[in-house]
């Protein structure tokens, strides 16, 4: 015996309610996305990243050739040519590890006021080596205290061994 249609109706309504709730959640997600990725912010400005180099924390200097892979124990830093960005532009530079955590940054401030070209990756608290995985470095334009445009980005890999 199959259930009567009036018995199924509450279930049907309930699942439609679930669908409506899902749409509310998606709208909330879209609003969040738009607030952090506001449209119409592209200026066409491009920052120049000279490269990612091995870094010496004691002397706070880079050495060697630019590289795309580093071992876990090797500190490294990105070198940014801040003069490639128009004066008066509010900028910041940030490193993200493979968990999406910020592990190094410079700024925010006006491009002409940024004096340190090397932006190193800092070791996470309690660790003696970097976490392996893909690291993302970005130079961002800041507006109203919030990053709104990526002017340059670079990906490097920290090897597991």
């Amino acid at each position: 015996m199959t259930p009567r249609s009036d018995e199924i109706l509450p279930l049907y309504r309930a699942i439609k309610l679930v669908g409506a709730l899902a749409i509310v959640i998606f709208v909330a997600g879209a609003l969040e996305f738009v607030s952090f990725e506001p449209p119409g912010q592209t200026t066409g400005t491009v920052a120049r990243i000279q490269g990612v180099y091995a870094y010496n924390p004691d002397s706070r200097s880079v050495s060697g050739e630019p590289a795309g892979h580093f071992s876990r124990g090797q500190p490294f830093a990105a070198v940014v040519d801040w003069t490639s960005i128009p004066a008066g532009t509010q900028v910041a530079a940030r490193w993200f590890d493979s968990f999406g955590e910020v592990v190094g940054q410079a700024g925010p401030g006006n491009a002409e006021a940024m004096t340190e070209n090397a932006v190193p990756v800092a070791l996470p608290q309690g660790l003696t080596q970097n976490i392996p995985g893909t690291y993302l470095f970005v130079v961002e334009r800041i507006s109203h205290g919030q990053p709104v445009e990526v002017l340059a980005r670079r990906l490097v890999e920290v090897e597991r061994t």
Partner: protein
Amino acid sequence: MNLRRTGRYQLALLLAGVLFLVLVASSALDYLSLDQIPNRGALLGLPAVALIGGATWVGLRAFQQAPTVRRRYELWAGTLFALALLLWLLVLDVFVFTQQAGPKVAALSALACLPPTAFGLWVVHRLDREEKEPWRLVLVATAWGAIMATSLVIWAESLFQDWAINALVPGPGLDATNAFSAGLFEELAKGVAVLLLYLVMRDQFHDVVDGIVYGAAVGLGFNFMESIGYMTYLDSLFGPTAAGFQWYHRQVLDLFFGHATYTALVGAGIGIARQLPGRRQQVLAIACGWLGAIAAHFAWDAWLTFFPLGTGAITLIQVHLRVLAMNGPFTAVVLVLLLMGRRIEGRNLVRQLGLEAARSGPRRSRSWPALGDGSAHDWRPGPAATSGSAGCSEHRSPWPWGAGTGSAASRTARRMPSRTCAAGSCSCGQPVVRVSRGGLDSHLRPPGGQAQGRTADS
């Protein structure tokens, strides 16, 4: 075979074909990008190759058989081929997910995850109290979640995240985008298992309760493989304590709240569609269930950062509260749908029993309304009712109605004497009711016939 069934099978075949192509592409990408796989993968993939060989041999032999026997050979060939595919995907999965910490940690993680997952499956299997789903299908659903679904999402998510990381500003916007991709791809990959069961296993897929059972089983399988992946990764980074915490979070705290809940929502939508008459309503129910699952998954991934954890002992409390606050409402929705579905099953049972009682006489029919409170779920077949081997004797009814209901009618029903039928004969002359999905299909026992299925006298 009617036209609708043919259409369903064609759709299932199309889905399976698309999935196969995606898996071939995934394997090719694995081969090209993960240089450790070819050597070890080829070695461990040998059993898969042997199974493919076996499937081919049996499949070829099928053509030489008479049509009546051919189907059995074809079934064997298909089973061997499916096993080979699963084994090969498992090999790939093991390498993709566990290469971080090595096989020993991966094996230990798998061993640690087995008991909670098995317990979860046992609980899920018991959700359907009227007619439990066959273990083989529940385990197939679990295997799909663990092996097929994880294989399907690896590259989809990786490619999407590669695009996102190169196109968006890092931060909450990027996190939300990645969360959406995880919800979309993972729920599609998991939910397609429930959809295929719905399309081709109608005999074992009847309603919302079945959908929730199959969906949760797929989710538990996915959670099993994902737990191993995360545990091995965190062990390689932070040691066994981090892996242990991850085990607790995913296999204890999140066992029913995470993937099991999400895919149960997909299953609920498909199960409700199974009970609806109109095509438009069916599509809408399936879409709503799927959207609910994607949204629940998205909400967890995207808004986890809104519930930051502190340090010290308070973290333990916060972790639990966070899961309850973020996933709890969706699990509650699944439970509500489950209870509604079980209530409908109970009413069907009552209605069918009422019909049977009306046919067999007025004495029992007065008792059936006592079942309307859902206490019919508490039915357990008595030994005589199931085996049919006991002698024909007076004993308590195998229908312990109203356990906990306390109604006068149910008490009356509980006191009712009844009879059982000895194997091969039934001297009491009562019709026998066979319990099946959506109620009871009654059939009068043929004279001297053997009781089949769950039987109860009426």
